[in-house]
């Protein structure tokens, strides 16, 4: 084990990281469009992800129009409904959340937070974005091909996904699979960058245990994504073979409307294993960056070091590793060997322990803190509420027998929206309010932020908390029509209408957010270089917004961890990571 000696000296030698040659931009195109600067790429990723996310949001309205007011909006037929939920789900999970956390926040924050000039492979990084954009364009194109986008559900289960009673089986499903394949290829290029930058380009003094948890979260999530996405890749390619070349990887002998299909012998369950081998880690690919970011938001705005930093790091690593052996908890009632249920229920509930530790440590960071109710902090606190709620409902679904009545019902929909929809989105908002001043040099407007916050947080809770109970009654998910189920009480129709109205309100509140983003770009209050008085390196850049190469002539040198807030005896309530150890303090062991 590498131990770090204590002695403090005044002057540290300059960084001995090899200086990288930056591909400098010449002219407008290579500065803003085909840029190889991770910060520009980050903004491109984020803007694209938010734009396609807006499409998914509109789709969620359409879904809710049907569920809340069945039969009223006659242009939504069953076929369209399934197309809407499929595209909504896939866009939200892959093209919004994954792209935004890793491509957006990863690109912006990793080099700045570890004190690098840029990502290590800037060209591949640029390519990564353009392939992602292409993937998004292919996805959007599927709305315009004959038959429309696929309506197979975001899980794309065969055999149904490529058969004729599923909408979009002509072109939609092919475009969806191609788009996913592109996304994965593009992501891999980006992911190599994020990983190797963390491994290789940390500045002098930036040991792993001095990295902010944001970097840890994104780092581990990226590694998981690199290893998990191939499963989706393989599944997508095999399904394309089945669809286009007539192989039977996933296609058993089956009959469609009395007609024997030429398929035979394939295994639908095999697809499910591959899909969830990607799909479960995917949940944590979205969650871990959110964990990391929220830790830093809470710590900064409560002016207190993150409580139990080491436990937080270990928990991220352990959760990342364990999440590769729980995938089949999505398949308890899939018809796989039921005895697997024992194993997967146990591993799933074990993950609850490190996850709970993270929650405790966030809460204990607030304890005896100095809490500032800034917009990022509000969102971080709301994250705690929704994440705890969603995490606990996960214990229902992980515990195999409890899952039996609940799986494939609206309870599941409510659960995963709370835990991987609302909670990470709240973190994304908090993070945008937190880092926007660094990206643009200006603050976002506070009043608009508070309005946006309260409507989004309370609205989202009111949408998804009651939804659990609709599922508990037994309403299946992906139901075009559930008000006519025999046991559904009249009152459930009212509840569905209420949920829908809340969904419209929450959706519209996002307009305020977008307006704030655009308006403040020019008119926001000047932010200065470190408006939150934060310790981590990205706030210590010589310029705000940071220039190409981030650090001026010399790389920063790191002397301490990222959480020296309210250190006893220090003049200020924060000590930047690159401040030499002139004040020595004896911390309680």
């Amino acid at each position, binding site marked *: 084990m590498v131990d770090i000696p204590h002695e403090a000296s005044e002057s540290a030698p300059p960084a001995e990281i090899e200086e990288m040659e930056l591909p400098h931009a010449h002219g407008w195109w290579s500065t803003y469009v085909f840029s190889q600067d991770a910060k520009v790429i980050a903004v491109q990723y984020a803007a694209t992800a938010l734009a396609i996310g807006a499409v998914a949001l509109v789709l969620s309205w359409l879904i809710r129009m049907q569920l809340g007011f069945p039969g009223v909006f006659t242009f939504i037929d069953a076929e369209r409904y399934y197309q809407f939920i499929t595209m909504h789900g896939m866009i939200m999970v892959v093209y919004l959340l994954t792209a935004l956390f890793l491509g957006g926040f990863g690109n912006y924050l990793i080099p700045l937070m570890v004190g690098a000039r840029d990502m290590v492979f800037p060209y591949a990084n640029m390519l990564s974005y353009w392939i992602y954009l292409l993937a998004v364009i292919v996805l959007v194109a599927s709305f315009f091909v004959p038959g429309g986008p696929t309506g197979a559900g975001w899980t794309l289960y065969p055999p149904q996904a490529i058969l004729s009673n599923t909408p979009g089986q002509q072109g939609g499903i092919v475009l969806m699979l191609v788009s996913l394949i592109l996304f994965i290829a593009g992501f891999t290029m980006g992911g190599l960058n994020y990983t190797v930058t963390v491994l290789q380009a940390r500045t002098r003094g930036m040991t792993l245990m001095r990295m902010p948890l944001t970097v840890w979260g994104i780092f581990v999530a990226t590694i998981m994504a690199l290893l998990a996405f191939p499963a989706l890749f393989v599944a997508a390619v095999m399904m394309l073979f089945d669809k286009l070349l007539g192989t039977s990887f996933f296609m058993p002998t089956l009959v469609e409307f*009395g007609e024997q299909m030429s398929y035979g012998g394939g295994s639908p369950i095999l697809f499910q294993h591959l899909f969830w081998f990607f799909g479960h880690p995917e949940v944590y690919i979205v969650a871990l960056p959110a964990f990391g970011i929220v830790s830093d938001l809470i710590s900064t705005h409560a002016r207190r070091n993150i409580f139990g930093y080491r436990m937080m790091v270990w928990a991220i690593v352990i959760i990342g590793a364990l999440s590769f052996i729980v995938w089949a908890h999505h398949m308890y009632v899939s*018809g796989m060997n039921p005895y697997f249920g024992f194993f997967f229920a146990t591993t799933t509930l074990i993950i609850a322990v490190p996850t709970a530790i993270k929650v405790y440590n966030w809460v204990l960071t607030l304890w005896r803190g100095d*809490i500032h109710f800034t917009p990022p902090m509000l969102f971080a606190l709301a994250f705690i509420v929704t994440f705890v709620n969603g995490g606990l*409902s996960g214990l229902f679904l992980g515990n195999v027998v409890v899952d039996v009545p609940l799986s*494939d019902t609206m309870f599941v929909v409510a659960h995963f929206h709370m835990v991987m929809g609302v909670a990470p989105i709240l973190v994304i908002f908090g993070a945008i309010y937190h880092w926007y001043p660094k990206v643009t040099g200006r603050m976002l407007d506070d009043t608009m932020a508070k309005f946006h916050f309260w409507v989004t947080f309370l609205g989202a809770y009111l949408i998804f908390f009651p939804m659990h109970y609709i599922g*508990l009654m037994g309403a299946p998910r992906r139901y075009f029509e559930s008000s006519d189920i025999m046991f559904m009480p009249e009152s459930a129709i009212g509840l569905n209408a209420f949920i829908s109205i809340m969904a419209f309100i929450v959706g519209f509140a996002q307009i305020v957010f977008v307006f704030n983003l655009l308006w403040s770009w020019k008119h926001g209050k000047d932010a200065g270089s470190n408006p939150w008085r934060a310790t981590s390196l990205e706030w210590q850049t010589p310029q705000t917004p940071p220039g190409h190469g981030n650090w001026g002539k010399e790389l920063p040198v790191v002397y301490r961890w990222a959480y020296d*807030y309210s250190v006893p005896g220090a003049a200020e309530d924060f000590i930047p990571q690159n401040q030499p150890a002139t004040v020595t303090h004896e911390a309680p062991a």
Partner: protein
Amino acid sequence: MFFAIVMVLIVVGSAAFHFLSPWWFTPLASNWGYIDDTTVLTFAITGVVFSAVVLFVAYCLWRFRHREGQKAHYEPENKRLEGWLTALTAVGVIAMLTPGLFVWATFVDVPDEASSVEVIGQQWLWSYRLPGADGTLGAADNRLVGFDNTLGISPEDPAGQDDLVIEGGELLLPIDRPVRFLLRSVDVLHDFYVPEFRAKMDMIPGSVTYFWVTPTKTGTYEILCAELCGTGHSYMRGTVTVVTQEEYDEWLAGQMTFADLST
């Protein structure tokens, strides 16, 4: 301050919603009361944890809100506290998992005396097959499915000749007798789900899946398909009626056998 109050309201409101709202499990009609019990236990444990965490946050927000001259307490970690919390969590998890696994062990273990009912799903219709006088179901295969044999029952297998075939009709079950549902699909994935029985299982073309229940309450229950199976998914309904043994026998006598149907 305001936020602290909102947090308290969230806890109180959620609890009130839980206890006062009319929305809950449909009344149980099978032996799987254990599942309900485990669920209720899980609600209790998770409800307590949720309230405790959120109320604690509310307290912190109120107590440690920023005021002039306040400084946060510097304390990087507290091994002892973290250790205790970890242990406590582990206990809670074990308290939920252990009963869960025991119930699962009974769920996957079909009692020997259970009678078999085959359920066949196809877009978007439920059909059933019951063993005839010989007590066994004949072989079946999707390759045999055609317009005159929509369930793919093997005409060669003598055991299949007396099987009772119910296509698209209603299924009856005798009360208090365990049934093993054998699930097949002709085309895509479906899922046989009767909320009042608390049980469900996917049906996969090319294989036979199963689960078992003992119906404990007479009445008519709706069968829902719980696995997306194409545009008609939400219309794929059926009914199962639990009746007394006499009524069941009477109904059974009126059903057609495979041999009847194929001549």
